[in-house]
Every structure is written in C-alpha cells, then in structure tokens.
C-alpha cells in the first residue's frame, strides 16, 4: 500500500514537473514570437509613418494640380452653380412616365446642356465629369 502511494506521488510529481516545464517552455517560445511580432509591428509602424509623410508629399495640392492639368485637361474646379444642398433634391417620383432627369432642379439643366456639345473632348472622361456635383453642404 505504502509503495503504491509513493509511486503515485512520484508519478504525480513527475507529471506536474513535466507539465510545468512544458508550459514554461511554451510560454517562452510564445514570448519570443511575441517579441518578434512586436518588433515587426514597430518596423511596420515606422514604414507606415514614413509612407504617410510620403503620401502627404505626393498629394500636396500644387502637385495634384500640375498632374490634373496634364492628365485631366477637361476637368476644372467646382463652380458655385454645381453645388446643391441635399434638401433641394426632390424625392424620386413613382410615376414611370416622368423621366428621372426632370426631377432635377432647373438651374443645373442649362449648364449640363451647354457643356455637352461645346466640349466634345469631354467624352474621354465621360464617367468622371458629372455635370452636377452633389455636395452635402454644412449649412
């Protein structure tokens, strides 16, 4: 009986010891991994930081303007008449007989009409040059 108890104790101690060391080594390995990851994060953050500065430099307004003039010659600054307040846009009518464009307020209409024929090259950037820019105003 006594021998059995001792044997059980020894086995338990060995198991606990094994578990303890196993976990300990695991933790150590994970900590090493963590340190590596943290190091990586640090490097990534430094790179992101530098890229942010780079982005600010590449997106500075005068540069964008230069590029815009070169590659988007038909685009121009937003004119006051192109801005509408969101409240000024009427709700869509359910009546299918009424064309959708008729729902747009009158002032923008002649603008769109005269812009299209007068500037045939605008077709190149057709998808981008929307005649009416809807901007939610802060009023």
């Amino acid at each position: 009986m006594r021998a059995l108890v001792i044997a059980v104790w020894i086995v338990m101690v060995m198991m606990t010891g094994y578990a303890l060391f196993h976990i300990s080594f695991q933790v150590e390995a994970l900590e090493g991994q963590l340190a590596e990851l943290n190091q990586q994060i640090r490097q990534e953050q430094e790179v992101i930081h530098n890229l942010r500065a780079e982005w600010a430099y590449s997106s500075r307004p005068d540069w964008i303007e230069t590029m815009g003039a070169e590659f988007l010659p038909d685009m121009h600054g937003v004119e006051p008449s192109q801005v509408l307040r969101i409240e000024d846009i009427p709700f869509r009518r359910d009546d299918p007989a009424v064309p959708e464009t008729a729902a747009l307020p009158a002032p923008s209409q002649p603008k769109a009409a005269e812009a299209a024929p007068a500037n045939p090259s605008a077709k190149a950037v057709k998808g981008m040059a929307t005649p009416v820019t809807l901007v939610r105003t802060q009023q």
Partner: protein
Amino acid sequence: MIGPFRRTRRPKPPELYSPRSKPGGDRRPVLNCAPTRTDGTFRRAIETGRSRLLITGAVMSFAFVAVGLRLVDLAAFASPTATSAPMHAETAYRMHTDRATITDRNGVIVATSLTTTSLAARPDRMLDPVDAARKLAQVFPELDPAELTAKLTSGSPFVYIHRKVTPKMEQAVMELGIPGLEFERDETRVYPHGPLMAHVLGFTDVDGRGLAGIEQGMESVLKGSDDPLRLSIDVRFQHAAHQELKKAIDTYSAIGGAALVTDVRTGEILAMVSMPDFDPNHPADSPAVNRFNRATFGTYELGSTFKIFNTAMALDSGVTTLADGYDASEPIRISRFTINDYHAKNRFLTVPEIFIYSSNIGSAKMALDVGPPAQKAFMERLGMLQPIALEIPETGRPQYPDVWAPIYTMTISYGHGLSVTPLHLAEGVGAMLNGGMLMPATLLARDNVPTGRRVVSEQVSYDMRRLMRLNAVYGSGKAAQVNGLMVGGKTGTAEKPGGSKGYNRRSLISSFVAAFPMTDPRYVVYVVLDEPQGTKETYGYATGGWVAAPAAGAIVERIAGIAGIAPIEENAPEIQHAFAIDLPEETKKLASLRQ
C-alpha cells in the same frame, strides 16, 4: 525523509532473549550487542556517525531544494528573456517620435518627424584623422576636405560630420572601415508641403527645437505628446490663398502680401499666407527677411477697410442710422491737415453712400459724432489695441496714439493713425458679420466654440452685411463678385508712411476684405498687397479695388467649391428685399468705382 532518522535515533533496546525461543524452553541469553564494557563507546561512535550523516543530509537536501526552487522560479516565473514591458501583449506598441506630428483640420500631415541617421566621429579614437577626412570627403562630395580635416583635428572629442545620411552613403562609409566613426539615429523634421504653410508652422533647428511659428509656440505640447496636433488650417484653402496671392503679387510687382481666410462663426483661421515666404525644410536657404510674417506680425495702417468698424460703431452707438447722412461737400481742414475724398462727390451723402464711396470726410464726421473716448473704447473692445493671443509667437502689437485727440479720431475712422495686423482686421470683420460676437482667432482646430465677446448688436451686424453687400454690388468691390455666392466686401488703400508729407503717395498698402455668403456669413477672406504697382490692365491704378479685390474674389470662388457652399439665387425677391437699401439714382448708375 524524517521518519527513518527518527526510527534509527531511538533504537529498540537490545533483546535479551530470542523472540523465537519458546516459552519454557532454552532461555539462553542472545548476544546481539557489544559486551557491556565496550557498549558505551560503540554507541557513541554510531551516534556521532548518525548526527554527521544527518547534518550532511540536511545541507545536501537544503541545497537541492534551493536549486529546485530556483529552477521552478526560472522556468515558471521569470524567463530571463522577458525583461522589458513591451514583451507583453497588453502593452501594444505605439510609435514614438520626439516631436508630435502636426496635421491640418482634415488630418493631412503638414509636419512630421522622420528617423534619419547622422554620421559622427570621435577623433581621439581615430588612427589617422587626416586620411579619414580625405576618404570621407570622397563619399560626401559636398564636404570640403580641408574643413573636415580641421574639424577632426580640432581636439574636440565628438564632432558631427554629416546629418541625414542616406542608407547608400551609410553603406559606403561602412566600407571605408575607418575606426572612430559612429552612426546615430536621430529625427529630422519634414514639411511635406514645403513653403505652403511656412509662416504658420515655422521651423525647427537641427536638434529639433522650434524656432518660429507653431513649432515654437506649441513647443511643450509637441514635445509632450504622441498625438498629432490638429490645426485649424485647411490645406486646400491654404493652397488657394497661397496661389492667388502669389499671382497677385507677381502681376502687380508687390514687395509682399498676406492672405487670410477665417471662419466667422468659430474664429478659426483656415488659411494664413504671408509673402515672400520660405521653405521650412531649408529655412536658411531664403533671406531672413522672408521669415517676416505679414499676416500676424506686421502692423499696417490698413486704410478704408476700417470704415467697416467706423460705420458699425456709429450705428451701434446710435448717433446715426442708415437713413441719415453727412455733408461731404467740403474737405475738412483741421490744424495743418486736410481730409479729402478720393472719389469726391461734393455733396450730402447718406451713411450707405459714405460707405460705398469710401468717403473720408463723411467717416471722419461720423467718428467725431461718436467722440474720441467712445471710439477708443470701441477699438479696445474689438481687440484692436492689444496683440492677438495666437498660438504662434509672431504676433504684432498695434500702434496707436498715446493721446486719442480728435484729429486721430478722424484719421482712425478711415484707417490711418492706428496700425494693426491683417489678422486683427479679419478677426474684427468676422465679429461685425457673425451677429456681433468677437471670436478670438486661433490656429488650432476648435471643437468647442467659445461664446465670444459682444462688440456690436445683432441689428448692426445685419446692417453691416447689407452695407458690405451693397458695396460689392454698386461700389468698389465689384471685382470680387462671384455669381451665386452673395459676396460682400470693402476695399482699403492706404499710403505708407514716408515721403514729403508724412505719407508716400507711391507706396500703397492695398487690401480687400470679402465675406460670403452675406445671407449667413461663413468665411472672411482678406488680401493685402504691400506696395503693388499698377499695370496697363488696371490703367496704372494700384488701389485695393483694382489689385486686391480680384485676388480675393478668386479665393472666394475656389474655397466655396471646396467648402460646398450652396449657391444663392441673388435675384430672388426675398433676398433683394432683405438686402434693399435706398440709394439715390445717381449712385446706382455709377459705372466703375474702385478704391
């Protein structure tokens, strides 16, 4: 472990008879111990041996327990590699720079610190400084070998050879294999937008100390935090103001100028440009005079734009109304001075006419009606007599007469005799238009808008909107008109001090202050040109209406598009009605009037 010792320590007394002997049998004594004579000695020897064993065992087991505990401690509790806090996941790593980043109101980076490498030398550890200097000069062609030799042989224990070394150069220096060279990681301040915000941001020295602008004014905040500092400036507004001001300065060959865009509701400065400017990345490349901030530090007699304040003051004090008028038929002669009108009408003018014709005579009479003490108190209330508490150190102190005599009251009514910075004027005009509250100007984004200080009544503020709008329609501000934005404005043309009569007719400070939309003003745009020259297109005129108003109008148009200000139907009956001011027929027909 303790049991066996205990058992051996107390041995059973020796048995005299064998337990196996049967009762009643042979009772021979069993001799299982030493003879009685030697028994004591033997026992003592055994006792000594046992106690020695015990002590040794105790020491050994203590040592093993200690080693075991230490093992457990090392394995389970303290890993030798886990020495620093960032090892643990809960302390997420955050990048740290010595100086915080500065962004505009939309989060666009306008100043940040980047890690760079510097090359330094410890000459005392060098084998041959002269040879080292020669080799280094080959890697860095911009360094002068003689100068470098002098540096390395000067006896100084530590000298910087080159700041901001590129990785390529770093490699080249490593390959030279010179002992005594050291690479140091340090930070360089970078301004991605270059000169765009030069006077707002200022710059830092090589050691990262702010020497001007926000960099100096907010030094402790920038040093003490990793969070970006958010300015009130909008880079897009700043760019529009910068470009249009530069255009105007180039066109009219002005020696300098300033442009400001402020939010009348919050007092935030959205754009602040002073020209000529410099690149904060390389401040030493521009002449020192370029660092002079004309927008907040330079004080000028700003001329007729002051009539905005003068008219508001007169209306607010109740000495006159929009329906009243003054006789402007004769120049005013006071002691040795004569006050004339530039666009002399030589007749009785109503208050709105005085404003749109920019009549000095009428304004002077209006100011005299209010009186010098009340005028001084009004200017004090409007902040025109103290420097503006801005976040940059470059703030100019207004100059005003010690004794506020009536002659000064008259000249100050049309903007002479009181020198203020352009920012003072923009701040004051904002207060005239936003309902009468003076909002302290700031360069930092404002989330909580302060209540401000009342300077004129709401009714007067409403009247000033109408007057400035009228001036832009019929008066001198036509060039700043943008259809659909209800721009209002006032020109100012002041002669600079100097010349024979105390003022120089040739060197002018021409300015234009615009605000829009007048139905509910949002932004004040102020453009000042220092000594502009007339061109053929302006018929030689260099007055505010000819040179500054078009620039202000261009800025208004550009920023309205960015800010998304909805256009207003200017001819709508309710707008016409709200802004109607009765004018004589003659005034309405006047073709061109730009001062």
